[in-house]
């Protein structure tokens, strides 16, 4: 039918419409390319780290030398030369900024361009009447500013850069760092453990409900730089925190590596909600450039009745390799994973989750929505494991794939391992296409092609989008539209 040729024609028109592809011209302090013990010592020294942390890094580095890059994921890319990357880049400054006024105005402008409410008054102006957002911004390797710090401190909440927390709360870092994602967990996590430069640290004390969304924006700016941030969030007994993460990077022809590690710990009756809108540069339509996003995210529901909920909207990156997971140790603990992953043009995503049921009456819920357009390849890979002691464990998994055009692919790879017969596991999967009927119906009501596609796709993703905090949901909806611009004829 004629419509097919039109679809292909329109697919050719998808351009690199990446809105965040600017470079900030700023004086940087950059380590030489390559990785050896000296570079690690330099990073550690720059951060004035204690001896034990340097040793921890060096041990990771030695282990990394013995590990192999994983090859099981359904993603293809040329070999990465790990010696051709800068492992440290920071805006030049003698000391860390003490307040926003000390932050380089160019940086602030960069964040303003990204729409990040870095200045508190902007936050207030932007979200009238809705809960406030506290923001920590990570620029290449260092955390440059944290808003609302004082207000949070009064409640005993610690929210700030990882490096600073190493100085102010070493006992917490030492106790929890690597306790969810061990040093030698996987190739990229081990690399991160050796070279991580900064990231975000959150601690919510017993019984405290964090009154605002905590948010970090990560931005890769410097050429040929890897970004290896480390996030550690601890929700003490009976506490609650909602955390948002957003990412951007400039457009560059070469690929850039992002290998972060995120560890979450929820103690008795605590709840952590972790949301990500990932919008790294995806490369151009021929697959040139873009971010390699190889990230290890894992949460441990250590306490009884604890809950960890991951929500992710993945629209960017050339390659996404990411499985935010939950270890359900505490009895009655709950894990959730809500995901939207879009691959357009030459993008590849292999993403999903692992739910490890250890405690009794543990429950997990997985809702995955994969959207493939252009030549994009989208794989859902998920593991549900029920250990022998996990009496009455329950899991519900739903994987829906939406295909746009006939050159893309969707793949669903569920792994289910059950060692306790009382477990109840449900898995549903569907694959569909946006129909001509649906498109025409929208057009006939006056929507443009782009609006129509965005509307239908947002409908498809609804169950995930409605889990995002309000302020983020609007942005994420727009992002879906932009990512798919021109992808249906």
């Amino acid at each position, binding site marked *: 039918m004629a419509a097919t040729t039109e679809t292909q024609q329109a697919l050719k028109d998808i351009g690199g419409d990446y809105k965040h592809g600017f470079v900030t011209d700023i004086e940087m302090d950059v380590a030489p390319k390559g990785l050896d013990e000296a570079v690690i010592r330099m990073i550690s020294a720059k951060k004035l780290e204690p001896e034990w942390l340097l040793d921890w890094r060096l041990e990771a580095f030695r282990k990394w030398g013995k590990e192999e890059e994983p090859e099981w994921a359904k993603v293809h890319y040329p070999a990465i030369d790990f010696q051709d990357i800068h492992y440290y880049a920071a805006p030049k400054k003698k000391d860390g900024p003490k307040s926003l006024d000390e932050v380089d105005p160019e940086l602030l402008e960069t964040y303003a361009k990204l729409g990040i409410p870095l200045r508190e008054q902007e936050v207030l102006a932007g979200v009238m009447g809705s809960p406030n957002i506290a923001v920590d911004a990570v620029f290449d390797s260092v955390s440059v500013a944290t808003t609302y710090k004082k207000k949070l401190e009064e409640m005993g909440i610690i929210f700030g850069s990882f490096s600073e927390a190493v100085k102010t709360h070493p006992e917490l870092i030492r106790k929890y760092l690597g306790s969810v994602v061990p040093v030698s967990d996987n190739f990229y996590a081990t690399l991160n453990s050796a070279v991580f430069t900064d990231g975000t640290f959150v601690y919510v004390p017993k019984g405290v409900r964090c009154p605002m969304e905590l948010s970090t924006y990560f931005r890769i700016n410097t050429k040929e730089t890897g970004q290896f941030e480390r996030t550690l969030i601890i929700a003490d007994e009976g506490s609650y925190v909602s955390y948002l993460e957003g990412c951007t990077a400039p457009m560059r022809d070469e690929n850039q590596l992002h290998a972060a590690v995120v560890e979450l710990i929820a103690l008795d009756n605590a709840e952590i909600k972790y949301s990500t809108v990932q919008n790294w540069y995806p490369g151009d339509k021929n697959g040139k450039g873009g971010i390699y996003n190889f990230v290890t995210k894992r949460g441990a529901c250590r306490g009884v009745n604890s809950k960890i909920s991951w929500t992710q909207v993945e629209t960017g990156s050339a390659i996404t390799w990411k499985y935010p997971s939950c270890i359900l140790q505490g009895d009655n603990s709950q894990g959730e994973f809500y995901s939207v992953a879009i691959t357009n043009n030459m993008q590849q995503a292999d993403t999903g989750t692992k739910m490890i049921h250890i405690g009794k009456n543990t429950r997990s819920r997985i809702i995955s929505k994969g959207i493939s357009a252009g030549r994009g390849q989208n794989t859902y890979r998920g593991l549900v494991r029920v250990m022998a002691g996990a009496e009455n464990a329950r899991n519900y998994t739903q994987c829906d794939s939406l295909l746009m055009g006939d050159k893309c692919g969707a793949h669903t790879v569920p792994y289910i391992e059950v060692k306790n017969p009382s477990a109840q596991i449900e898995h549903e999967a569907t694959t569909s296409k946006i129909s001509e009927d649906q498109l025409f119906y929208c057009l006939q009501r006056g929507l443009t092609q782009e609006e129509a596609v965005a509307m239908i796709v947002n*409908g498809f993703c609804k169950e995930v989008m409605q889990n995002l905090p309000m302020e983020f949901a609007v942005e994420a909806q727009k992002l879906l539209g932009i990512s798919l611009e021109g992808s249906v004829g």
Partner: protein
Amino acid sequence: MTTMLEIKNLHAAVDGKEILKGIDLTVKAGEVHAIMGPNGSGKSTLAYVLAGRAGYEVTEGSVSYDGKDLLEMSADERARDGVFLGFQYPVELPGVNGMTFLRTAANAVRKHRGLKELDGIDFLKLLRQKASLLEMDDGLLKRAVNVGFSGGEKKRNEIAQMAVLDPHLMVLDETDSGLDIDALKVVSKGINALRGPDKATVLVTHYQRLLSYVEPDFVHILARGKIVASGGKELALELERDGYVNYVPEAA
């Protein structure tokens, strides 16, 4: 009265097969035209061609709308410019909230007309006002568009959308089919409420039944891709009595 729609010698093909074989029709502002015909005669094809659906290829002829060349306009431009198609089979949009959908559509139309776009609250007001005019509640609009609606609910929803979008040219494709008598009354009331001196309606229908509630100015019989007879509303009554046998011999 000004001419709203002028169709001249319209030929159209689907998948290379000619379905419309030379249609001439002039609709003036303020008029209601009924197009009747047996199944497969090309009624929906005509409606889709007027709405600009992809895959419905015009091979000959012209259509002007409000003095403009309608065939030069894309489907969404036509919609924003006031052409509304009530679908014979309204389409389900899973997960798409009816309010959001209709507000987006209404604002697209309003923007085109140089009117202020409506925020959530203003839109709700407009909706309430239209709903009371049609004696409908807005419950359907709170759900995903057409998902799980009964046949009658789908048709009522089409009319509600039409009322909010306030089009100039309304093409209603078998809006009456599948309705029980009460639903038919509600829908007819809606159509009548939207009649006006600056509006025109093309009612595509298989049965005469609707026409006793929405009185047409003209009735046309479409058979095998051509208009074979035109007349006043008495033509519809004749069809009711004799069927299409006088126009399509094999329909006897």
